[in-house]
């Protein structure tokens, strides 16, 4: 599945860079299944929880990657969809509804609907407008969460139990991990189908040149809106899982800082690359864990690292992935794979 058109020596065009190598999928799957089993064997339950967190944030970052990396839509409001997913679960739980079969689809639906509404307005605009509007809209949900007493205000809402799945008890760390793995695995498969479909190809090509895509007959606005909505829905699923992991939701989940962090994860892992979300979330959370162990000023370190990432590359942001690959592959063939984290359709 490396290349759909033409001879295999043309691999690095943007239509292909977003598709994973089949071997990488097997590697990732093996890693994600064996890791918790090993931790469980060693009695390190903390790391199983950490693994669940990484998987959940990986799902959220992967969702954002669809909009930002593949679609070139710089959304600074994805935390809202994460939060809406989470709050849906918490509010339904408060009303006594805890069946995962019911609340998870509802969480996805609510987040998709919010993404649809936000996309409907913000996709009419370009450039800095789009960034500011996604940010401003997402804040509406933050204000709602903070100011409505039914939503728990500043303190958020606790979950008394995790969502119920017939036949499984999710309060065990290992079981919960595999539940998360199952759902995010399904989402990853869906994401794979998406990006390798004709729809996914259109999304990437619109990022490359929106005007031309309209001129050859693509309904650009509708395709972008669809991608944005799907991306919001996936983020909503991540939010529903996050609420279950933390056993609570707080307004902090929809804070725009969270949206910024999601962008950072996507950039770290590789914007527009299939495993970008997973790599980025894992890198970020592990780094945070390690550094926060040594200093309370993790944010200072993060800020400095980000500035370095932006400024050290002559043309702006370059993902770590590209940097590492660049070290190994200095010869010319890498030249055109470089740019794919630096598209600027909206500019």
């Amino acid at each position, binding site marked *: 599945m490396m290349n759909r058109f033409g001879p295999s020596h043309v691999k690095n065009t943007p239509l292909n860079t977003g598709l994973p190598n089949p071997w990488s999928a097997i590697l990732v799957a093996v890693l994600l299944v064996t890791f918790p089993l090993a931790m469980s064997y060693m009695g390190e339950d903390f790391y199983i929880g950490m693994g669940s967190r990484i998987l959940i944030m990986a799902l959220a970052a992967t969702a954002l990657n669809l909009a930002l990396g593949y679609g070139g839509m710089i959304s600074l409001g994805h935390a809202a969809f994460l939060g809406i997913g989470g709050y849906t679960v918490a509010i339904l739980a408060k009303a006594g509804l805890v069946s995962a079969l019911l609340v998870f689809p509802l969480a996805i639906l609510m987040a998709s609907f919010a993404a649809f509404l936000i996309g409907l307005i913000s996709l009419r605009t370009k*450039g800095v407008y789009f960034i500011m509007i996604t940010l401003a809209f997402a804040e509406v949900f933050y204000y709602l969460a903070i*100011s409505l007493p039914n939503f728990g205000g500043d303190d958020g809402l606790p979950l008394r139990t995790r969502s119920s799945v017939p036949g499984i008890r999710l309060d065990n760390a290992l079981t919960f991990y595999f539940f998360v793995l199952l759902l995010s695995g399904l989402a990853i498969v869906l994401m794979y189908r998406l990006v390798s479909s004709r729809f996914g190809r259109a999304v990437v090509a619109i990022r490359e040149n929106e005007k031309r895509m309209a001129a050859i007959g693509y309904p650009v606005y509708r395709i972008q809106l669809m991608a944005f909505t799907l991306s919001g829905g996936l983020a909503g699923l991540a939010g529903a899982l996050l609420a279950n992991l933390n056993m609570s939701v707080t307004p902090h989940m929809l804070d725009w800082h969270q949206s910024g962090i999601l962008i950072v994860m996507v950039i770290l892992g590789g914007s527009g690359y299939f495993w970008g979300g997973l790599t980025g979330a894992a890198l970020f959370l592990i780094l945070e864990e390690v550094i926060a162990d040594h200093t309370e*000023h993790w944010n*200072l370190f993060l800020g400095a690292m*980000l*500035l370095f990432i932006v400024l050290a590359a002559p*043309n702006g942001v370059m993902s770590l992935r590209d940097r590492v690959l660049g070290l190994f592959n200095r010869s010319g063939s890498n030249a055109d794979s470089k740019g794919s984290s630096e598209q600027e359709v909206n500019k």
Partner: protein
Amino acid sequence: MGYLIIEQMLNGLQYGLMLFLLAAGLTLVFGIMDLINLAHGSLYMIGAFLAATFFQMLGSFFPALLLAIVATAFIGFILERLLYRKLQTMSHLSQVLATFALILIANESIKIIFGAQPLMISMPSGLSRAIEIVPDELYYPAYRLLIIGVGFAVAIGLYLLVNKTRTGMWMRAGASNREMAAVMGVRIKPLFTLVFVLGAALCALAGALLGPLLAVTIGMGESILIPAFQVIVIGGIGSMRGALIGSLLVGMIDTVGKLLLVLGLGFITDPTNAGTLGSTLASLSISVLMVAVLYFRPQGLFPARG
């Protein structure tokens, strides 16, 4: 009740004018450089913290205010030279990341230097009383009147600068069409330095003036950033007039709108509910206004680009 509304209108004016101090710099940076600056609120926070510190050292409000403005403008100058000048040529995504990084660094540095506790600034002693505007009916704090006065003075000053001076002409040219302005001989780089430093100074002015009314805290920059963004989107990127009118609109909705909503809701629900619901609806209606503007006039009410 009429006086209550007048009082809230004055509050709205005061809030709107302070918002304008931030939005003015922000809109020019957006408009002239096509640069998204998430860290504009951090300059406001830095200005407030510097004012609080100088105030503690000097014990006097106005010298502290002036020093804070000069110091923040200098920080703005350094940032522009070291960072923003480079960012200007980069993609929007790079700008988002770098200025987000700047927020993280600013917040953490302030925490290291000043600690996590909020700082306080006292009002200048002569201004801490209320002034009788309508005998026995309407009193209004003298300090807030001062803020309104300063806000208006700055607004008029900026209007004259942008519309009556050669520098202002360059700014307008830069905001409406950067390439064309450069072709016509506007030196964009020094212009941007000037705009950025001016923006930083205005941030510090707002931060220092609001210091006695709000606590000077670490998150303060971000809480004002979103309304400032809304103002710019409503007014039109790069437009000074749009920034002023947008600020006043947002300020009025936030105060008078809130009051009217609370009063109106008081008829249909109990006061506590009406209070929270009213303020939520007021914040929402600012967003609704933004959506409406975007829908009917995607370039804002006063587009700078022709």
